[in-house]
């Protein structure tokens, strides 16, 4: 019996080592850059990191990222001046674009469409509207030099906070233990393909079984509508609170949104108060090809091209370029 355990243990260990090597050689697991909080308590990536982002069991989506000196994924450095025309794209993982090669980003596509401008992409996975305005507020000097700022917003989950606070949960991903675990590409790979979900689900089930809660109350349609309405009003109040606290330049700032998933209350608020926004819903709706990745809900190359086109058209329409 001892022999069985010893030999099985040895085999398992050797197999794990070989699998770790295979995953590294074929780059099946994704690289995860290190994050940090800067002096303004802005969460971003540690500058000057390079790596590859991988999606799918069999490397179905493979792209390179490059974190610049400012701590964002971009092929350029952010050095705004009075003379140049600069555009900032601020947003979450959709703008950050780890699922695309950094030299083929939305910003790069806009630059190709509108010659003579520089596009700075301040994208970071998980950024909500509070993160975005806090970033702009913290780097006011830099952003004052930028001619136009476009902020990606998703009404349903970007306005849950009325003021900025450091998101400790995200930073916890960079604890020493987590960083150590991430050193194993096999572990990172297994996590990304969902093989480690069942143990987590089992723990959740056990916890739920031990701490048996009161059964959740069934809510009727009327009550559900009331809750939805209340939530939307709260999000609107959060929007107002955030722009009052961190400032919002209506002349220079434009929101980027999809009206199909945005509350009509919020849209009419924006219209009534002269907030500019780019609505890409029609472009996406009319697209005959899929706009998202297969293994992921993020925009694929076609989706990013459509977004870049929508922004480019908007900028050209506004004639944002400085005359030299």
């Amino acid at each position, binding site marked *: *019996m001892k022999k069985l355990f010893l030999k099985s243990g040895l085999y398992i260990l050797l197999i794990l080592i070989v699998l770790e090597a295979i995953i590294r050689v074929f780059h099946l697991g994704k690289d995860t850059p290190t994050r940090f909080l800067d002096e303004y308590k802005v969460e971003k990536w540690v500058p000057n990191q390079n790596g590859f982002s991988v999606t799918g069991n*069999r490397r179905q989506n493979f792209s390179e990222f490059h974190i610049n000196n400012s701590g964002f994924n971009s092929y350029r450095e952010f050095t705004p001046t009075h003379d140049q025309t600069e555009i900032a794209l601020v947003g979450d993982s959709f703008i950050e674009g780890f699922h695309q090669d950094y030299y083929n980003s939305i910003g790069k596509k806009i630059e190709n469409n509108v010659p003579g401008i520089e596009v700075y992409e301040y994208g970071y996975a998980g950024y909500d509207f509070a993160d975005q305005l806090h970033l702009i507020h913290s780097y006011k000097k830099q952003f004052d030099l930028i001619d136009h700022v476009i902020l990606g917003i998703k009404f349903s989950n970007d306005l849950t906070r009325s003021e900025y606070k450091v998101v400790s949960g995200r930073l916890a991903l960079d604890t020493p233990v987590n960083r150590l675990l991430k050193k194993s590409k096999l572990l990172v790979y297994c996590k990304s393909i*969902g093989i480690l979900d*069942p143990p987590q689900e*089992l723990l959740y089930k056990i916890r739920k079984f031990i701490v048996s809660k009161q059964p959740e109350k069934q809510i009727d349609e009327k009550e559900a509508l009331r809750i939805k309405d209340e939530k939307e009003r709260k999000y609107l109040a959060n929007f107002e609170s955030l722009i009052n606290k961190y400032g919002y330049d209506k002349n220079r700032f434009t929101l980027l949104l999809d009206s199909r998933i945005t509350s009509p209350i919020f849209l009419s608020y924006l219209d009534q108060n002269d907030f500019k926004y780019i609505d890409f819903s029609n472009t996406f709706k009319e697209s005959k090809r899929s706009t998202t990745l297969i293994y992921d809900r993020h925009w694929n190359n076609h989706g990013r091209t459509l977004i870049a086109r929508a922004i480019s058209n908007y900028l050209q329409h506004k004639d944002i370029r400085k005359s030299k």
Partner: protein
Amino acid sequence: MLFNSLEFFIFLPIVFIAYWYIFNKKIRAQNMFLLVASYVFYGLWDWRFLFLILASTIVDFFTGQIIHSSDVTKKRKAWLWVSVLFNVGLLGFFKYYNFFVDSWIDFVSVLGYDIKSTWTLQIILPVGISFYTFQTMSYSLDIYYKRLTPTKDFISFATFVSFFPQLVAGPIERASNLLSQITTKRVFDYVQCTDGLKLILWGLFKKIVIADALAPIVDDIFANYGSYPASTLILGVSLFSFQVYGDFSGYSDIAIGTAKLFGIELMSNFKFPVFSRNVAEYWQRWHVSLSTWFRHYVYIPLGGSRVSKLKSVRNIIIIFLVSGFWHGANWTFIAWGAFHALIYIPIFLMGRNRMYMNNVVAENRWFPTITEILQILVTFSLVTFSRVFFRSQSITDAFGFLEQICTNFTYEAYEHPLGYRMIDYFLLLGAFVLYEYRIRRDERAPFKFKSKIVRFIAYTLVILGMLLFFDDQIDRSFIYFQF
């Protein structure tokens, strides 16, 4: 609890260690522990149905004793009927009741009567009922035919009925094989254990990599057959052949491997049916335990092949229809069985039904002959054709599927419903078939390599395959659980 679930991978080592370290002293302790473990294993699905297993166990335990102790043929027969009626009654109620009611309603509606039935019931099919009822019935039948002496130990018999590795989807064991092992004290055997682990690994590969990876493609093609050309439909049903093979033979390998860990040898259930050279050979290699059951308890009592040709043909038709109906309460399965009878009978009449019984393709050669390749292709095509009925939701769908193949006989490249590269699956299947061909002589030794290094590489590749094709979004249950 599924064999491919985390729960099982926690359950199995605990039971294994307790079995060999704590309960290894006495045979009674071993059996008692296996019985409890089996009831826990099954009860985690639905504890209410444990009472059905217990009832089936009690009925057959006592009918077996009575049949054995009596010399009066009438009495013996009467008690045999008690056992058969009880088990078939359980099956009939839980599996076939609604089917009979619905079929009756359909039949009278054809005659012009419209009846709104309130007789159909919301019945959950207890997992494994088709398997353990057949196993317990075989016990009473063997005693009746005086092939077996009943056990007086109820715990041993209950363990035989509910032995968890094969409780829910077989192999359907006969008491002469399994019960005799259960009534003998098991001793730890290193080689047997490692063989078991290898079979578990290979079974998991077949399930996770072959069956589960093909499932989304097959589901998509069968659900939307009306919008696909013939090329896609043929691809879909061919892939289903591999899916159902990977699923069920994978399950059987895990079951046989798990039983080995407890010192018990179960019968082989699959012997590489993909390489069958005619349909008769296919049935000697596919779901062997069920075929053997039907041969022993239905075909031979009906006279088998020792009666006139006409009666033998009748027996073959009965066997295949019953076998089809065993698979599910749906006309599709009866049609599937009927089709197999139809393609088996010519082989039987030509006397070619036993010619491949004791050999495999390319028996003493590396490569098969052209004739053998053609034979395999024809057999695979026929069996795959029958799978249209096996997989379709209804007879209408099955004929709709076939009609679409005939009326839309065009080629179009198929795209995976989730957008994955189809070439990955073709390469995977190619490699799988080649490997199965390599190991075709022994279904119980999937990693038979002399070199330790080669064996290690094989283990690693199998595990890597599982990682590369693992899909956390799909339903992981086994196809044969529904039967």
